[in-house]
């Protein structure tokens, strides 16, 4: 396959990537938007089954996703110079200025002058007894399954963990006809009250929270409550929870557990971009430590959709040469960053959450490594070499973050490819040098 060339490459078509693409193209520059899903929208606007043709290659058909705000879609449909590459994954960075992309049928290089990484976040999954039973998923993961067609009508569901995502997920599940028995938030009620009080500085968030609460009226939302174990033989039958001083068991069909979000930084690491506290280290205009690379949205710090939209726009403007316009948004970003700090502060994990696993609990599902196997080690590299923890199919995407939380091991040493890749794709030999800008 012949190589692709673009001025500005954008990885991720969630809110951050879409906003970046819009800013770039509305200022007359060409962009190429890549996402590994068939439809745009990212996590928050994950497309349902009804969202038009899933194999669309032309931009307009691709854009039909009712979950995305109509105004954004309409503007994106109008711009010139936007090329979309749906269902394509960035699997490697060979040299500065080119990405190796893979889709179902082919692999090819994309050469760019500037790159905006809007790779989003994944859920923080932490091990507890029974967490690998069928019927137990991530809280956002369960929401995604439902959006993609899982039938939960009439099913009894418990959501547990931490953060606003539990509420968003509960609302989706309820709208799909599920019976949400309980939302167990590990943060103490005092922390939660502090968070709600802080929301007065972000009226839009407050309104969003109020809407969610209304949609979830009647659903018990318990602070200071966390999962202890998922119980069942072949499949989940019930969940054991700590609620204040009490331990309680609740029969259910599904259990969704997520303890917050972890930025997807594999691509940034492959590019050699510096990280700080687990997300991309960026300057005031979202530039990474490597030249011509920007990071936006959850990839440069968990902060939700408004931060993602704003940062996408700023980086898009900056990459398109509209530096002043981008700078004008710095105060608005500072406001979003304060919200992000509130999130992190008020939903910080109770130390008890780090003690949920027992010696037999699997920490690495790919390689069957148990909590007890890991206790003998005091760093990620040694634990990994000796137990194979993190060496399996997910390459530590899940257990790496879990080990960082449980044992305080910073995760080091990500290796190419960025995601599992067909060997034939790595063999793409027809690379040409990126044209000089």
């Amino acid at each position, binding site marked *: 396959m012949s190589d692709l060339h673009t001025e500005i490459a954008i990885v991720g078509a969630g809110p951050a990537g879409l906003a970046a693409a819009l800013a770039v193209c509305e200022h007359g520059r060409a962009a190429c938007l890549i996402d590994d899903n068939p439809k745009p929208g990212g996590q928050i606007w994950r497309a349902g089954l009804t969202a038009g043709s899933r194999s669309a290659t032309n931009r307009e058909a691709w854009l039909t996703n009712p979950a995305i705000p109509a105004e954004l879609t309409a503007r994106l449909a109008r711009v010139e110079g936007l090329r979309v590459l749906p269902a394509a994954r960035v699997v490697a960075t*060979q*040299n500065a200025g080119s990405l190796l992309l893979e889709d179902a049928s082919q692999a090819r290089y994309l050469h760019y002058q500037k790159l905006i990484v809007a790779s989003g976040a994944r859920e923080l999954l932490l091990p507890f007894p029974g967490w690998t039973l069928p019927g137990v998923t991530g809280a956002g993961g369960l929401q995604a399954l439902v959006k993609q067609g899982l039938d939960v009508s009439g099913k009894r569901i418990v959501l547990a963990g931490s953060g606003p995502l539990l509420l968003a997920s509960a609302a989706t599940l309820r709208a799909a006809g599920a019976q949400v028995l309980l939302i167990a938030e590990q943060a103490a009620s005092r922390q939660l009250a502090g968070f709600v009080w802080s929301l007065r500085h972000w009226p839009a968030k407050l309104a969003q929270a109020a809407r969610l609460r209304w949609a979830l009226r009647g659903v018990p939302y318990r602070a200071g409550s966390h999962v202890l174990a998922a119980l069942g033989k072949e499949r989940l039958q019930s969940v054991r929870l700590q609620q204040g001083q009490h331990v309680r068991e609740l029969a259910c069909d599904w259990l969704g557990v997520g303890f917050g979000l972890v930025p997807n930084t594999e691509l940034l690491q492959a590019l050699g971009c510096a990280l700080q506290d687990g997300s991309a280290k960026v300057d005031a205009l979202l530039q990474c430590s490597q030249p011509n690379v920007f990071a936006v949205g959850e990839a440069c710090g968990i902060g939700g959709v408004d931060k993602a939209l704003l940062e996408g726009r700023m980086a898009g403007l900056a990459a398109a040469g509209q530096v002043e316009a981008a700078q004008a948004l710095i105060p608005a970003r500072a406001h979003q960053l304060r919200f992000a700090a509130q999130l992190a502060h008020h939903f910080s994990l109770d130390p008890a959450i780090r003690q949920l696993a027992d010696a037999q609990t699997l920490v690495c599902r790919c*390689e069957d490594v148990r909590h007890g196997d890991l206790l003998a080690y005091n*760093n990620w*590299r*040694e634990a990994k*070499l*000796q*137990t*194979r923890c993190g*060496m*399996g*199919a997910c*390459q530590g995407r899940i257990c790496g973050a879990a080990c960082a939380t449980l044992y305080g091991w910073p995760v080091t040493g990500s*290796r*190419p*490819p960025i995601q*599992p*890749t*067909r*060997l*034939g794709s*790595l*063999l793409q*030999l027809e690379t040409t040098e990126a044209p000089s800008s």
Partner: protein
Amino acid sequence: MTVDVLIIGAGIIGSAVAEACARRGLCVQVLEAGIPAAGTTAAGMGHLVVLDDNPAELALSRDGLARWQARQHALPSQAEYRACGTLWLARDDEEMAEAERKQILLRQHGLDSQLLTADELRRCEPALVNGLAGALRRPDEAVLYPPVASRWLLSQAEALGAVLLRNAEVNCVNDEGEVSLSDGRTLRAANIIVAAGNQSTRLVPGLPLKPRKGQLLITERYPATVHHQLVELGYIRSAHTNDGDSVAFNVQPRATGQLLIGSSRQYNDLDSGLNWPLLQRMLARACEYLPGLLALQALRSWTGFRPATPDKLPLLGRVPGCQRLWLATGHEGLGITTALASGELLADLLCNTRPSLDPHPYDPARFDTWTAATPIQAVEAATC
């Protein structure tokens, strides 16, 4: 307290030497700057194989293999020892003649092997490309997972009284039996053994040792795709070239069902990042032999540096001109195989007992240019 032996480096070589010394009743300390078994040992393929490019290589690898075989049942299961055997693949009649020559040579050294015709080869490894001329099968060769095997050796030594000091980075050594650590401590021992892999040159300047970069790639799990470790007969040519980059087909079935694909060799590239063009050459080569690889999922690739001497034989013995300062390094691409043999040989020399192998081919003094250029005074001056 002065220990009998201070070993610098807890890779597979330092660990094997530690275990052999501890078994002889010596008081042993092992100094490791980083994490045990996380250097070159963690990057290696773990193929236990007899190579026969020269008699000394053959002797050491044969002895090393025999010692692993003898101890296989003591290894923890996580060391993933599997006697899968090796198939040396011949593409054409010329390589088949090479296979026959190899068989005769191995037989002279008491090593069993079978020649496979093209048909027999196809039957035992159906995933291989059609049209190969045949193969030589070495049934008793094996594979293992080096980091665990290496750590196991060290824990065997520890069980015999050896002491591991972590975070102990050695800055300099001398022939007075003194070792200075970067944290300011000085340790003393009757004998010091430098087993610091590629970093040994830092401690003993002028050492004829160069890092030789290699790259490997591992796939997701595809159990029973390949049954033997598969190596092209051209491998030795690649391993023994002295300059230039080379690749050779070398594929290993892991106990997990994953395929580990090698291998490349490269001097003068000290960057631990991947060299893509060379990786692509290596994979292209692998796909020539196993076309089905193209569709498999690649999980991870990495690089490592083999500590290589000019003649590809290790340095086992005293630093020329020294009494207390010893070397155990330079094992290039065969250090997993030869670790146990090297440990025994060095421990025998140290205890003044007669080694079962002739030690001369591995004596560091064989590089006479080096002996002349670096008397121990120079070593001290440069490192302390």
